[in-house]
């Protein structure tokens, strides 16, 4: 399980979508659990990318699930989920992953689910149980986390980064009047990886990365 953390407009959702699409191209089914955007709206947004084809969804290679509809069907419409309801939600997500045959899963975003859980203690419990469920299923999952531009902070509840196997940080950086999207791998358990920053460009054919060359005056957005 990898945490994709970042602020608004840093490309978290696009990165996650491409993760699913590239997996589907390799025969690995994907499940996109959307909390904030309705699936119809997501499809509309995704259609601007050349690498995404609606056939992927039509052929069930990528399945998009609206979590608010899951809440509704499970009777979890209250503003705050009770502890027992957290278990129901995790079990249901596990069932949906199993039924879809997904090997790759995206939850966009963990932060939005956390708001329903309210207390930090319950949010941690939810994340831990979700991580265990995905681990049992042998899936590779990306959990989107909305975090502000606070240096060194990659999670809202302070435990996500400890539970997950990896943390990918996306941020906006201003340089000479331009706003650059920057990706940095903070943690990737069991691997030797670069911790350098990379400039990323979200193009119709997918995400492009280039080393972030130093120089010029930097300012974190």
């Amino acid at each position, binding site marked *: 399980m990898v945490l994709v953390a970042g602020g608004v407009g840093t490309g978290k959702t696009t990165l996650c979508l491409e993760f699913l699409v590239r997996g589907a191209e390799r025969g690995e089914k994907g499940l996109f659990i959307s909390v904030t955007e*309705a699936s*119809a709206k997501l499809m509309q947004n995704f259609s601007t990318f050349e690498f995404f084809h609606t056939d992927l969804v039509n052929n069930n290679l990528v*399945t998009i*699930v*609206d979590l*608010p*509809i*899951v*809440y*509704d*069907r*499970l*009777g979890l*419409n*209250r503003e705050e989920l009770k502890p027992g309801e957290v278990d*129901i939600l995790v*079990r*249901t997500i596990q*069932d*949906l992953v199993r*039924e*879809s045959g997904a090997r790759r899963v995206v939850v966009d975003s963990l932060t939005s689910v956390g708001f329903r859980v309210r207390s930090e203690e319950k949010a941690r419990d939810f994340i831990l149980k979700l991580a265990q469920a995905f681990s049992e299923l042998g899936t590779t999952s990306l959990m989107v986390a909305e975090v502000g531009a606070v240096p060194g902070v990659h999670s809202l509840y302070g435990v996500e980064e400890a539970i997950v196997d990896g943390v990918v940080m996306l941020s906006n950086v201003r340089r000479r009047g331009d706003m650059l999207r920057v990706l940095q791998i903070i943690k990737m358990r069991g691997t030797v990886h670069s911790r350098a920053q990379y400039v990323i460009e979200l193009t119709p054919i997918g995400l492009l990365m280039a080393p972030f060359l130093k120089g010029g005056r930097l300012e974190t957005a």
Partner: protein
Amino acid sequence: MTTGDEPLMGIPDIDAALSPYLPPGCLIVVIGTPGSGSHLLAKQFAQAGVGSTPVFYYTTAERTIDSQDAFRSFHWDPEPIRFGNLSDDYYQRVLEPQLEVSRIRERGLRLDDLRNARRAEVSVGPYSLVNRFLNDLAGLDAPFRLVLDSLDFLLELLEVSEVVNLVRQIRSRTQLLGGKAMVTVQQASLDNKSSAMLEDVADLGITLRSDPNGATFEHTLEVRKLRNHPERTQIRRLTIDDTGFHVAP
């Protein structure tokens, strides 16, 4: 529009004794014992307004079709009356979805349960019977006659203060528009404090009783409160025939 001299409850002796002392907009609270006929009195009150004002009959105690049949059985035409069924609404909006939720939780959610769903279909927040009723009440803009039969169902679901507040809203609307409203409640649903709060809101407080008397039951109507006219409190024995309640000779 109201003529101002329409029957109060459709029991001529009672109407004559009480009507002159009630304001144009008034609230009647009927507290009944089991078998005393509070549902029947509610219907008799409703039919008494037919032809004078729009009449609204909200029931929480029976199916709408059963209410309408009951009207007909006393030779009262239910057609001009607009019916609202709060318990049916509650069943459709709350209990039926709960059944479906239980079924889904038990067998597990499937992708097919989600595929054709749209977010617009997702229910927005918990259903509120109070909001549902107050929305109707707020839509009234002319003198009316309204029955809420009964508060017992609401008292099962809500705090007493919320129910009393709802009754205050009804009274406020009757005063504003010149309507007449009746709410009924079973005595057993109330403790002393909630009973006192309801009677405090009422312009006319009535208790209906049904007490054993030999091999039959004796029905009595107690006028426990007539606002500003304590001298008018009284106890009347009632009879019931196929045209409703009458004061016993």
